[in-house]
């Protein structure tokens, strides 16, 4: 009897220790999260002022706005998302339809490459060989290479969810393959594709090192679209302000707050239709449970 009581006490204690340790670990993670975001929160109101967003940087960025930076970031964003989707969808279709070891290993190689190697790759291939120079175009092409594996992964999973019989039925009804894709498949996988775009954008927004060697870091105002001109995306701007320019820390934090706000807004905006129409949650997405996470992987 006494032995059983001791055993029960031992179980209780060890159970408590384990739960305590795990809880502490979780709280540590959340505490770190709050700790990192706190300084940014204070700069948040500054970051969202119109004068900051569209103004011209002066004094190497210590004062003034980040207009050209925002423009470069947006141009890069739009170009790279466009290219990722255009290149990634066919690749995903190919991978979903048939096992293609060569293609899959190509995408896997892209997925596993460290970002700085992408910088070297982009530099050697786009800046030098294709003679695009330090430009937003080479930056966008490099970002596309980086974003592609994430988008393809999500898109392929989504495409695999489409039942095979849809293909057979549409073929028997005389639907050509491109009609089948755009009219039958696409409406079904739209939400997942948007999620894929968000995911790959979060990867791209965090990218600094690779863009340093491909898009350059010019701070001039860009005329027109300036695809072939060097520009400075927001992440590079934050980096420059914090490392290479003295006394620019609060501006760096302001830029960081802006970057986080853009990512967050993008995230929520693209999930808004789903949340309103279907009651899906606005903050968490199925991705969290599927373990497809952005960032250096």
């Amino acid at each position, binding site marked *: 009897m006494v032995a059983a009581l001791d055993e029960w006490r031992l*179980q209780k204690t*060890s*159970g408590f220790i*384990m*739960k305590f340790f795990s*809880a502490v*670990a*979780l709280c*540590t*993670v959340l505490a*770190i999260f709050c*700790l*990192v975001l706190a*300084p*940014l929160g204070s700069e948040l109101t500054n970051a969202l002022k119109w004068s900051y967003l569209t103004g011209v940087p002066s004094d190497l960025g210590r004062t003034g706005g980040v207009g050209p930076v925002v423009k470069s970031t947006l141009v890069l964003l739009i170009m790279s998302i466009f290219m990722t989707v*255009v290149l*990634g969808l066919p690749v995903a279709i*190919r991978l979903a339809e048939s096992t293609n070891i060569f*293609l899959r290993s*190509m995408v896997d*190689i892209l997925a*596993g490459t*460290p*970002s*700085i*190697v992408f910088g*070297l*790759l982009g530099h*050697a*291939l786009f800046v030098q*060989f294709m003679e695009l120079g330090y430009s937003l175009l080479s930056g966008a092409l490099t970002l596309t*290479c980086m974003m592609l594996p994430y988008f393809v992964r999500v898109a392929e999973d989504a495409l695999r969810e489409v039942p095979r019989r849809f293909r057979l039925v549409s073929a028997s009804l005389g639907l*050509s*393959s*491109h009609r089948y*894709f755009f009219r039958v498949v696409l409406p079904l996988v739209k939400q997942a594709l948007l999620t894929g775009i968000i995911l790959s954008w979060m990867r791209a927004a*965090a*990218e*600094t*090192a690779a863009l340093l060697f491909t898009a350059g870091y010019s701070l001039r105002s860009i005329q027109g679209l300036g695809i072939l001109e060097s520009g400075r995306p927001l*992440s590079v701007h*934050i980096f420059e302000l*914090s*490392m290479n320019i003295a006394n620019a*820390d609060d501006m*760096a934090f302001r830029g*960081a707050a802006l*970057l986080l706000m853009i*990512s967050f807004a993008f*995230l929520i905006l693209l999930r808004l239709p789903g949340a309103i129409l279907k009651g899906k949650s606005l*903050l*968490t997405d199925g*991705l969290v449970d*599927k*373990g497809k*996470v*952005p*960032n*250096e*992987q």
Partner: protein
Amino acid sequence: MWATYLYKASLWLAPALVASFVAFGFGFVFFESLPFLRSVDWSGTLSVKWFPSDESYGLIALMSGTVFVVVCALVISLPIAFGAAIELAFFVHGPLRSACLGAVGWFAGVPAVVVGLFGLVYVVPALGNWFGQGFGLAAASIVLLMILVPPTVLQLTETLQAETEGPLLAARSLGLSQARAVWKVVLPAKTFALAQSAMLAASRGVAETLAILMVAGNVVNLPVSFFESFRTINATIALEMPYALDVHRSSLFFLGLLTFVLVWLLRWMSGAFKKRPGLS
């Protein structure tokens, strides 16, 4: 119909483009590193002196910088990540769990620049006040911890929950408490999954460039103390690329290939851990 032709054409054109990006990209990186590979004195690489202006290309200091920082970061981040993942997978339920997962998920998306900035402005001065110099292995490990923990927690939470519902319910129905069931039934079967995520975290650590660069001090040095400046392979590439010439430049491309090989080695090792398909 031209639309169908366009569709069908893109179905082979896009993969061809992607494959050519990969092939040409890596081909050019390799090609750019050839001058270095041809002219380097290989015995000279086994030294601590990385001074390209003196034609000395010692790799030991750089490699040990990378290895040390990843090891230190893993030592502090793996317990936290494992603990948090276990907590989220088995002990927290409902809306609180979704909220935590959402927070961790969003934190995983925070750019490395921002984490590095935080480290530069807060961690480094704090360490400097307590220990003398702020830049160094300690600061870099802390920053790397902040980068490695969220993705590891997310991935591990998902992995820990895969195929454990059955055995867990069985253990609970036999009278074990949740903690006991997790510790004795679920975790022993998931040791491979834990090892795998540790390897993946290590590969992420080796691949990380910017955040470490911002807090490490960047002096070519063998990191023997926690508060001495040091440098990693990736940081060397990022810092010296803007002004490197000729052989120096191609040595940086070689370093890029080196880090690529290291990352892939770790990823391969994590894949090799995927032996058992489920619980025993």
